[in-house]
């Protein structure tokens, strides 16, 4: 089953973008746009108007907090999920305050990330997303 939702992945590490896009693909979202820092993400956001953003925090040029602020200024309804390896309370609170809908840690086991993303995507796109079944 495939979905047409457009998702923007923002992370300075190509391997993280690949990992996240693989996760999204297993949930049926195969059209992902990628940006490698905050500034690129803003350009991308304005041009592509994605339905949902997965956003890293520690990035060169412009960090995730500033990016989140600017995206929310462009579109106050923007659905942004933080996906970071930062585990401190301050980052979680700051993200929530700036309007991120969810805070996911990269070191969370993949199956847990998939489950949580599935819940978020289901409500964001108001649709039923079947749980991915491992390939035989």
């Amino acid at each position, binding site marked *: 089953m495939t979905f047409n939702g457009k998702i923007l992945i923002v992370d300075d*590490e190509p391997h*993280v973008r690949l990992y996240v896009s*693989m996760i999204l693909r297993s949930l049926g979202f195969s059209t992902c746009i990628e940006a490698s820092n905050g500034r690129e993400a803003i350009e991308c956001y304005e041009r592509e108007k994605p339905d949902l953003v997965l956003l890293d925090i520690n990035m060169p040029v412009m960090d995730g907090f500033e990016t989140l602020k600017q995206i929310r200024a462009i579109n106050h309804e923007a659905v942004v999920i933080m996906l970071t*390896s930062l585990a401190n*309370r301050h980052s979680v609170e700051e993200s929530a305050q700036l309007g991120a809908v969810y805070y996911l840690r*990269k*070191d969370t086991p*993949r199956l847990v990330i998939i489950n949580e993303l599935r819940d978020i995507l289901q409500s964001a796109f108001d649709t039923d997303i079947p749980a991915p079944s491992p*390939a*035989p």
Partner: protein
Amino acid sequence: MILLVRKIPSVMSQLLVRGCPHPPPPVDPLKNNEAIALQGCTILVVDEDKAQCDTLSAILRHEQFKAETADSGPAAIARYAEVQPDLVLMDVVMPGMSGFEACRELRRIHGSECAPVIFITGRHETKYLIDGFNSGGVDYITKPFELKEMIARIRTHLSVRTLLAQQRMLVEKLSRENKFLGMAAHDLRNPLCSIRGLSECLLEGLAGKLGEEQTSIVASIHEASQGTLQLVNDLLDIATIEAGQFHLHIMPIRLSELVQKSVALNGMEAARKNTSIVLQDKGTSPSVMLDADKIHQVIDNLLSNAIKYSPPGSTITVAMQTTPSEHVISVRDEGPGIPENERDRLFQDFGRLSPQPTGGEKSIGLGLAICKKIIQAHCGNIIATNLPTRGCEFRITLPLDPIP
């Protein structure tokens, strides 16, 4: 007594003489702390009487100190700035500026870094001496002074100063190293998450079906990244705890929810090792004030340990209970148990014991040390008991109201 005389080649002896202008004094029992090297410390002698200055300087040089002199309060302040002494011997009665005033001024200029000042005075009255301490002096020697007493006092205060400087340096070094460790661990975590996640994708055939050999290669990559990620996370936790930045974020949470979540999370890994996890008492427990993330981490750790050491086909039992005085969570396995002679090391940092994980998993022995610190921070307790049949039980107890 046997006297050993070693002949020193002439060039060598010249070097020795040049490097050390005074012969080392015989061992003196009054040298209170031989572990701290005090030779070469600079002492500033302040006295208006030049003969007195010279005598004191000669004595100090004989004791392997460097001596500098000044003949008045203002001269002492100027000389202090030039030579940065480690200690000041200050006469009290001097024309113009008294020793007390000079000491006050030195403390004002150099603040907490100021070298200790010992007064040399002919007066013994307590009130007078207290004035000296109030001006910032650390000690006093009364005239006529006993040489050995003076040297002993000088050594004591030099030792204190040296130790304080060392302590300050070590604290700074430790916090720098902790910060570095934290940063390094953090930067390692990112790529490790990707390696683990992407190798899982390959194993699940998301990029096409793998052959038998390919599967075993990717499985090795996955296992190595999993172990290293665990190590990095544990090191980060320890660094946080050691740096004193370990804070609990208390919120109300149902213990049963936490336990169920951990059991669900570890179910897959247990199944992979043909082990099952049984949860007793699924009833809802009352809401408890605790740090949900950290308690979750503890339960997770106990469960993954149990899985690690369980033989295939065995059962892990998780039980929850609330008694009138405490909440109890226990994890029982059917593994090899804890060797009695290694029990002391169980909750220590890097306290890895002799039993080996049954599936070749990695263990570095930080997990339980972290668990213990988390549970203790909640005013609770964690104990391990070998069961009479086989296996062992880890039991966490948390007070009904863990945080006062």
